[in-house]
């Protein structure tokens, strides 16, 4: 099924869940309101025309500093006029992060029967960082959701055992958030730096 048909079939079935969609660089993407995630995922898995039997990946992006980093100009202090090199232009640009929420959960689905892929993006607000867990549909989501919790702090309702997976118990904070500095260490033994 090609990308526009895929997006249409989801949009037609869930008109109030899908808030946006695009096919940037050929990747079919739908943006879904958080409370419908489990329903849409179930539809994707069970509908015979889509049959997305694989949950390939579940991750999150922290959009809090998107587009806000200034390009550091190496010679700025010496007075040499430096303009950052222009971006490679794009005829069909990306619409940008889903909305003003801090996090966006990204699900990648694949179907082995129809050989098509779909990306599902869900904006998650920092204040209410909670989404339904899809472990009932795909047991592989268990560890993926634990990793998102560990790295970003997004909670999953209905997850059997949400605890840290990559970091250790005494670690405080969520490392992949943009406000966690890269080399802030919390060693169990040994010096901090």
């Amino acid at each position, binding site marked *: 099924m090609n990308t526009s048909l895929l997006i249409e079939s989801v949009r037609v079935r869930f008109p109030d869940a899908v808030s946006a969609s695009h096919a940037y660089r050929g990747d079919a993407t739908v943006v879904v309101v958080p409370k419908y995630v489990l329903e849409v995922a179930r539809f994707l898995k069970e509908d015979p025309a889509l049959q997305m039997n694989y949950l*390939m990946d579940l991750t999150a992006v922290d959009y809090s500093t998107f587009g806000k980093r200034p390009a550091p100009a190496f010679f700025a202090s010496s007075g040499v006029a430096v303009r950052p090199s222009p971006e490679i232009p794009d005829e069909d*640009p990306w619409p940008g992060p889903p909305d003003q929420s801090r996090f966006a959960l990204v699900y990648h689905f694949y179907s082995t029967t129809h050989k098509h892929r779909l990306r599902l993006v869900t904006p998650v607000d920092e204040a209410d960082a909670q989404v339904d867990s899809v472990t009932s549909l795909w047991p592989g989501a268990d560890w993926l959701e634990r990793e998102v919790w560990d790295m970003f702090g997004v909670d999953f309702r209905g997850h059997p055992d949400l605890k840290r997976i990559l970091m250790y118990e005494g670690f405080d904070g969520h490392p992949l958030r943009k406000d966690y500095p890269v080399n802030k260490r919390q060693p169990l033994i040994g010096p901090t730096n």
Partner: protein
Amino acid sequence: MEPTPTPETTRTESEPAELETRDMLLNIGPAHPAMHGIVRIVTKLDGEQIQEAEVEIGYLHRGFEKMAETVDYNGVIPYTDRLNYVSPLINNMGYCMAVEKLLGISVPERCHYVRVIVSEISRISDHLTCVGASAMELGAMTVFLYMVKAREYLWELVEKVTGARLTVSYCRVGGVKADLPEDFAEPCRKAFEETRKVLDEAHGLLTRNRIFVDRMSGTGVISAEDAISYGITGPFLRASGADYDVRKDCPYAVYDRLPFDVPVGSCGDNMDRYLVRMEEMEQSMRIVEKALGDMPPGAVQVDPETGRPIPAAEMVDLAKVGNIAAISGGCAVTGPTLEGSGRSQHPAIAADEKRVFLPPKEDTYGNIEGLMSHFKLVMHGHGVRPPKGEVYFPVEGANGELGFYVVSDGGGNPYRVRVRPPCFAIMSALPKLLTGGMIADMVPTFGSVNMIGGELDR
């Protein structure tokens, strides 16, 4: 997990009636000889049978995704080497193809062939390591030594092309670092001859070996539907019967033009996985041989005026005095580090996009346009700047589908780089694989998982 008393039915006749037995918690801890890499498996045992197992990972978490946000797009490539460190070229290729998809550029055909060739060589060395290590854990130390011998031949081959044995950083965004050396086909043929000999010996030692077959058959069974629901891909899935290979189903680079077969097993036990990996090595060699034959020819390195190559120092001196005419068509002879990346090979290995790929050194040192485009790509504050966007690009890693999800905000550093690690899914299914089996079956099962810590924990 708390130990629970076993019910009365499991006691033998000779034991007195009031003997209480409890399950034992055995911690197969992070540092263990039979575990390649560091992972902790806490098992609850009833005698020799595993009742429950819990896997704890994260002992090699090195913050790849966080580090990728602090360096520029080409600077992420050394970090990708160390993800699946037994097949680093596949990771490099996956990341570079993801960023090229984001940029919307395509590389020349010869570059695709070169990438495919080195990826398949990397895949062979991964499977050699996996089969060798799992054979060693079952006691077949000889097989391990033979396979590492074959791997050394392949690593010497990789060293001829890239300069390093293991952590290569060979691909660049928009191409590869250097072309294959001119005399590549002959050492490649010899290395494959040695590898085939080693594979024959390994087959002879293992495939019908009573002990090996007894330990591997029927252990660690998983059905194809269960494997798919856990997100397992690669040889592990194909051994269970499902035929999904990214190279066939979603072809990239030039895989659609190269004929090869994908071995698919039937029972989903460890023996099938071993046989699938052995056969995949043979198919990879077949791909490389066909690709070497089909590749568009590379460039020839001579000066158009004299017919001989120009030494690099001479070329720079001529450029400094402004004698551009004498060096305009030529290509310099440089030392081993820059071999293969000269001006004549440049169109074959690099996308024709000067905002992405560095110019050849003859242009950098020879004329001002080359110097400027080098500056614009390397200096702080400049560099490769893809447009704002997000892409996902899957390649077939040695363990399964290795996907890179790259988000760009238009700046010089990637905004988010996510690796979809193939062995993460397999490890999450490990409790299911181990439960019900015996503690000794854990060794071949874990060996056939081919857990690579760098990829699992990133």
